[in-house]
């Protein structure tokens, strides 16, 4: 069949569709399997603790430093714009709301995906390539319970804590730049922030966002690793896919969540 015929093109479309449907179905079954095996992660807490160490503690430096710098840049840029309207005491409000509602969960999620998600995928992918997963099955150890579930839960626990730390450091950075460097009154910086930020509406919604992103990133990371082709190139492709897919799903999920959380109320 000639490669430029209509039937050839249609066949390619059909194959691509079937491939993605199959992948989607596999991903859904895999998610259910991980959830079914999740009690194992809680029963063997030491495994999950180890994963919290690898995905959470080792991500601390990048999260803290980027949070600090994001907050400082926000303060400088925000001051530049706000001062045109004579509203520079609102700097605290601007920084706190943008960090707690959006930047904290989203940027921490993106960093988490590239720092911890890629590592999880590479690790599981390499275990598969070197047939460690098959060896476990031979020894009647379920790799879903022993390898996948602890990493999944480690990610879910780490992500909200990392997002909160990111926002906190960002607000601290904005305080350093706004109050210490530029010289905004500290009282109006904190006071305006406190009167504008609502616990239920802003902070709880931000935490919910970060939990959702944690679930998404961890699930994508373990899925891509478990589903990687067992070759060196396959592991590298899977790692790339983890970063791309989780970044895109964080941004898309963030839009959907924002529509439901912040639409209409108060407007």
């Amino acid at each position, binding site marked *: 069949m000639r490669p430029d015929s209509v039937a050839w093109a249609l066949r390619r479309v059909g194959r691509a569709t079937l491939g993605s449907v199959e992948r989607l179905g596999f991903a859904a079954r895999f998610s259910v399997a991980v959830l079914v095996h999740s009690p194992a992660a809680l029963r063997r807490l*030491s495994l999950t*603790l*180890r994963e*919290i*160490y690898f995905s*959470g*503690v080792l991500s*601390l430096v990048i999260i803290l430093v980027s949070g600090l710098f994001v907050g400082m840049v926000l303060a400088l840029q925000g001051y530049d714009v706000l001062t045109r*309207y004579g509203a520079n005491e609102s700097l605290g409000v601007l920084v*706190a709301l943008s960090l*707690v509602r959006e930047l904290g969960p989203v940027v921490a999620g993106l960093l988490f995906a590239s720092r911890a998600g890629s590592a999880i995928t590479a690790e599981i992918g390499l275990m598969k390539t070197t047939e460690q997963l098959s060896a476990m099955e031979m020894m009647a150890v379920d790799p879903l319970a022993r390898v996948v579930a602890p990493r999944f839960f480690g990610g879910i*626990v*780490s992500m*909200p*804590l*990392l997002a*909160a*730390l990111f*926002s*906190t450091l960002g*607000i601290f950075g904005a305080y350093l730049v706004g109050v210490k460097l530029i010289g905004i009154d500290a009282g109006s910086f*904190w006071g305006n*922030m*406190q*009167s504008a*930020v*609502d*616990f239920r*509406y*802003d*902070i709880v919604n*931000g*935490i919910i966002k970060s939990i959702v992103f944690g679930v998404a990133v961890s699930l994508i990371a373990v899925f891509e690793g478990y589903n990687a082709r067992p070759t060196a190139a396959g592991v590298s492709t899977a790692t790339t896919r983890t970063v791309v897919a989780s970044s895109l799903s964080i941004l898309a999920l963030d839009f959907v969540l924002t529509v439901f959380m912040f639409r209409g*109320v*108060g*407007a």
Partner: protein
Amino acid sequence: MNRSTLDLWVGVFVTLGIAAILFLSLKVGNLLTVSHDAGYRLIAEFDNIGGLKLRAPVKAAGVVVGRVEAIQLDPKTYQAVVTMRIDHGYEFTKDTIASILTSGLLGEVYIGLDSGGDTKMLANGDRIAKTQSAIVLEKLISQFMFDRAAGNGGAPAAAAGSGGAK
């Protein structure tokens, strides 16, 4: 890695994370002073609420004493019915006047409460009798323009003066 150092680091991480959440809740979200205090409710009817929004502050002498909880339209009187949640510890007299004010030209819209000299206090669910509606800038401007247009035939200077006073 040694089990005890791993535990230590995870413990440090989780403690830091929870401390960050507490910081956001208490220092940024100001959960302590707002608290879960259910407060009590007051109702006020306004002819026009202007740009008043849900969760807008209720202030007395500039101090935030509560928040706007609900805004509805009374289908019979065509008035806006505003429910305010006032924190416990603040009491207002029966002859309190509620007015809708704006802080600055572009600032937020809030409800100001001015207490009178009555000895009885408002209780939960009470209705504030005297209210003052929001000042709608467009109406003021059009009033001013009409006054000027009407006054131009007679005494222009006096009309301009009275229009400005409104």
